[in-house]
């Protein structure tokens, strides 16, 4: 009742002083607008970082690799079998918390040649068709090899665009897209037929840059002779580009082909960090045939990310069983990566929020200032209201509500302004990760502005409510 009345009075007061109220609201409008805009920017940043994480298979992807046998099990070193197909079959039958188990056998020192061109792929593996889903690959031309190709150990391969660019020429150089499906290449002097090629993987940022460059036409990006700028720089592309480059420079062949043609599994896989054995095992130098070859790693996906720990424990139990209790394996997850993203996002959000909060606070000071001016102007009115029976609380609520109403209108206007602000930001910097406005940010900014309105109204409200009616009535 009192509140409704006070809101009514508040609106009238604001309407009566339109220009002054608008100026006062400007502080809140800008504060709310910048709070929402900065959180949209951070959200865009976060999306960009997660893009790379998803590109490599997402958070639920885990892989098992070999690990040095712990000290207390050194005496059983000769019984260690390493990660083998045996583990894969055991996991398939007894680990229900994981899905999509994909073995991987890495080929070492692979060189792909076609005519006079040679290329060392970053990633040359024998695997199952399931690797397509595991590593979020999309086949653009041709097809992925299938179970039959694997069973028959056919000499077929699926390549990334990086391999194509090196052996056939990139679209930028040639001027058109080359479809290499059906062509033959030599991998370590073994003849392989290309049956598929993945699409080009790149970050949102690189894609936009490439589209812009395509519109402008080819232009030299650096002076002097062409050169590589070093590992991890992604050929001068964005920082997250490494994950995409890795995928682009991949060659997949069927697991059995890898095993039979390159004997990759016959030598014990080197422990992580250890130097690759000289000469390598990829040359099929007639070593012993092993019935159950060693795998470089076993990839699997956790069914439910919430049950990561349970799933890992289950896998550990199964693999410990097949390894007769020898702990010669380790789990690798993307948790570190995702933690780094969380930390970076938190930092960006914190610094942005502080700046936006300060600007909102300045808006609040503006409201307080104008409310103080307004009550000085209206001392007589307050005196009249008190004379006809307004209590301390009535006057206090009236001033408080006026302040809150200004803040609420300013907050709503600020939310509208933030939409425009974000549009402007994404126009100004087309390369940046697109800012995304979230409902959370809008709610937070709005409630913050209401809180600022309440805080700004308390002091003027108390001051007005404390006025003595006689003095207020005599005031001129």
């Amino acid at each position, binding site marked *: 009742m009192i509140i409704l009345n006070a809101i009514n009075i508040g609106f009238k007061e604001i309407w*009566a002083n339109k220009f002054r109220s608008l100026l006062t609201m400007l502080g809140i409008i800008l504060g709310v607008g910048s709070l929402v805009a900065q959180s949209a920017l951070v959200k865009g940043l976060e999306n960009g970082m997660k893009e790379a994480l998803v590109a490599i298979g997402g958070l639920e992807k885990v892989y098992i690799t070999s690990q040095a046998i712990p000290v207390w099990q050194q005496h059983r070193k000769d019984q260690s079998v390493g990660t083998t197909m045996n583990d894969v079959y055991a996991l398939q039958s007894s680990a229900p918390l994981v899905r999509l188990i994909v073995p991987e056998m890495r080929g070492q020192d692979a060189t792909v040649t076609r005519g006079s061109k040679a290329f060392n792929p970053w990633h040359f593996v024998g695997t199952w068709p399931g690797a397509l889903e595991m590593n979020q690959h999309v086949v653009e031309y041709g097809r992925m090899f299938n179970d039959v190709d694997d069973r028959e150990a056919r000499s077929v391969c699926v390549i990334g665009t990086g391999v194509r660019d090196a052996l056939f020429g990139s679209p930028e150089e040639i001027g058109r897209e080359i479809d290499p499906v059906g062509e033959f290449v030599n991998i370590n002097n073994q003849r392989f037929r290309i049956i598929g090629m993945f699409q080009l993987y790149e970050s949102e940022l690189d894609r936009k840059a490439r589209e812009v460059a395509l519109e402008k036409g080819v232009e030299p990006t650096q002076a002097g002779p062409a050169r590589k700028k070093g590992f991890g720089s992604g050929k001068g592309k964005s920082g997250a580009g490494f994950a995409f480059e890795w995928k682009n420079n991949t060659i997949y062949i069927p697991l059995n082909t890898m095993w039979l043609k390159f004997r990759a599994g016959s030598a014990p896989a080197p422990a992580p960090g250890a130097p690759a054995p000289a000469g390598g095992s990829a040359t099929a130098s007639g070593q012993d045939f092993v019935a159950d070859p060693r795998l470089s790693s076993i990839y699997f996906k956790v069914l439910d990310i919430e049950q990561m720990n349970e799933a890992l424990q289950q896998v550990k139990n199964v693999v410990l069983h097949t390894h007769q209790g020898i702990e010669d394996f380790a789990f690798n997850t993307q948790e570190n990566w995702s933690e780094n993203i969380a930390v970076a996002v938190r930092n960006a959000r914190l610094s942005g929020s502080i700046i936006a909060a300060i600007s909102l606070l300045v808006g609040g000071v503006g409201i307080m200032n104008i409310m103080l001016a307004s009550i000085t102007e209206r001392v007589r009115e307050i005196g009249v209201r008190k004379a*006809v029976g307004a*209590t301390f609380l009535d006057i206090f609520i009236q001033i408080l509500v006026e302040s809150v109403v200004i803040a609420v209108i300013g907050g709503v206007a600020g939310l509208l302004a933030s939409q425009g602000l974000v549009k402007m930001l994404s126009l100004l910097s087309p390369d940046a990760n697109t800012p995304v406005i979230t409902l959370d940010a809008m709610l937070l900014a709005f409630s913050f502005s209401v809180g600022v309105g309440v805080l700004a109204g308390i002091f003027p409200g108390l001051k007005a409510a404390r006025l003595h009616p006689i003095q207020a*009535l005599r005031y001129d």
Partner: protein
Amino acid sequence: MALIELRNVSKIYHLGGEEIRALDDVSLDIDIGEFISIIGPSGSGKSTLMHILGCLDSPSKGSVRLDGTMIEKASERELARLRNRMIGFVFQSFNLLPKLSVLQNVELPMNYSGVSSHERRERALQALQMVGMENRAKHRPMQLSGGQMQRTAIARALVNSPKIVFADEPTGNLDSHTGEAILQLFHKLSQEGRTIALVTHDPEIAAFTPRRIEIRDGKIATHVDSKLAGLASEPRFSLPH
């Protein structure tokens, strides 16, 4: 029992170490239905007396009883409530809120007494009718003449059916002709049984009321009651023209 009983009331201000007795040991009764004037030159203490009678201020010494409530002990909240329900004020400078319409100005006291908006409107229109302002309800105070503004203020004072109406120099800002009309209005309201106290410095206006209390230096100097003196209670319209 009288409507208002003042017993040995003093109001003392301290100004720069000097003690100022705005009211000095005043005792006074006002009965229901009386039409009185409080008269005195400026600085005599008549305004202070009205403020204490009107619950706007509390006495330094003595007791005030308004319709059975001891107001010197009342909290600020209770005083606000008494002002709202028991007392109406009419001021020299009208004190209408310029941003509200005539109707909204009259509704103002009811905003603080929890009256529904429908009833507020109805009662405000009734009060405006009483003072002959019902056809100006939508106007702003600035669009009215002085007499009309004062009528509006009187309607506002009456709207909560108070026990007593205080009018502080109600004709002070009006020309004599309009002022007389306002006094006529008070007379009419008095005839209808309302208790009215006029505060003025002008003896000619004071002569208008049956009972007159003259304040000088914070004390009651003379107390004239035409009824007690056996004189006719008919008002004399002897305002200067």
